[in-house]
């Protein structure tokens, strides 16, 4: 997957988690949780979905890497490149 595909997948996962999610004003460099008013429990679901879809394990101490949309893409790019 390339960066754009990873980005699409992330938005799809978030939209799946939260039917109210509105991406129109989303700043890719600002924390997702604040902008989308997500709870830490929702955040865990992003991790769980990544595991379910791509058998990808995100260790708890690496959760901060998933803070913004761009940091997510940066973090996932090497891990999902060959998919």
């Amino acid at each position, binding site marked *: 997957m390339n960066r754009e595909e990873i980005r699409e997948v992330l938005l799809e996962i978030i939209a*799946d988690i939260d*039917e*109210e999610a509105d991406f129109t004003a989303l700043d890719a460099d600002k924390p997702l949780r604040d902008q*989308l*008013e997500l709870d830490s*429990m929702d955040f865990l679901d992003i991790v*769980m979905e990544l595991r379910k879809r791509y058998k990808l394990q995100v260790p708890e101490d690496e959760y901060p890497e998933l803070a913004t949309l761009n940091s997510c893409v940066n973090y996932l790019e090497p891990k999902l490149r060959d998919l």
Partner: protein
Amino acid sequence: MSDYQLIIIGAGLSGLAAGIRAARFGRKTLIVDQHYRPGGLNSYYKFQGHLLETGLHAITNFAPPERKRAPLNLLFRQLQLSRREFPVREQIGSEIIYPCASLRFSNDPELLQAEVEQTFPGCGERLYQLRQAVAAQDPFAELPWQSARSFVAGYLKEPPLENMLFLPLMLYGNAEEDDMALSQFTIMFRAIFEEGLFRPETDISVFLDMLVRQYQSFGGTIRYRAAVDEILIGGGSAQGVRLADGSVITADAVLSTAGLPETIRLSAPSGWQTPPAAYSGKMSFTETISILPDISRDAVRQDRTLIFYNTSEHFQYRRPQSLQDSSWGVICFPDNFAGSGSGEFFSIRVTNPASYPHWHALSSEAYAAAKTACRKEAVQASEQHIGSYGQAIVQQDSFTPLTIERFTRKAEGAVYGSPIKIADGRTPWTNLFIAGTDQGYLGIVGSMLSGISIVNRHLLA
């Protein structure tokens, strides 16, 4: 290899929510329940042609779908259910009635604020300060027990007002006698006074069906009429369960929503030696459900959803010294929610504190007679507040602490479970967990969040 990755004991709201989470993320999950229907404390039954709900008065924690951080909406997201496709009716307004004063409240917290300002001059600002303090609390921080009574007194300094506010908060979710843990108070204050009350547009059966369907759509299995006789423990961990029919089902983990005393009892043969008595709550209730023809609606109040009443200025939240204490309780009008249409019949439910030991001591003939007498007493007590309706009742049913224990396995019929909560859901065995009422979140929304959070924390992470 085990038969299942996870066995959940109980298809009540916490068990169903836990099951949906586990199944959604691919855990091979089995829910077992002794009853032939889901719901646990919040189930339903058919009575003389009427569908009656067992436990539901109103669901707390109302929030419109756009308030994303609200517990109700978090719950729907966690279960991957559409909040927009779940039609609800909000309360039309409720009231707390004491001999010398009454206070109305609704899903707009400003009504209670205004009522307090008017009824208790000088207390408006103090209530506001209390609300700010409650908003700043973190009820989920695992801290030592703190007294809610002292906390509230510190802000309000007005015992009559404090007694009035504690009545609905304790009646709808306090397992302890007399006082309440501050964390529990915070949860209940937000759930009832800040967020508010509602119910499904139809009845609880529709909500339960939606949960069971969601669970099954993720591949979860549910078995009714499958009472657990023993939680099997060996080599320091739970191995599975043995059902009443003698069959054994193995699992990598077991989550019990049967309450702590019952979970200890089920595990005792294979090793859990804690005496369950410390975990048996003392607060239980009787409830009288009266069905009336629509034409008699005018005889009673139609402008309230719930009326919490106390005939004394003092409020002692304790197990009574008799079968039932009708001097305080709550009157619920399940048909008085916004937009409820009128049908052929309507119902009135009256809930009063009751003593399990007194009911338990009765012979079966005396039990039936006591139920009849308590129904009459409950109706008469409620008529003081809503008008006379006893003569118009066409059908009547009631439940007692024994009924609750029999159908839900809550020891001594303690609907709010153990006064000691196990916030982390752990037991002495690494793969046996508890969720639901005895984990510490209460009410429909609370117990479901309990099931969810225990699965998230121990079984998915």
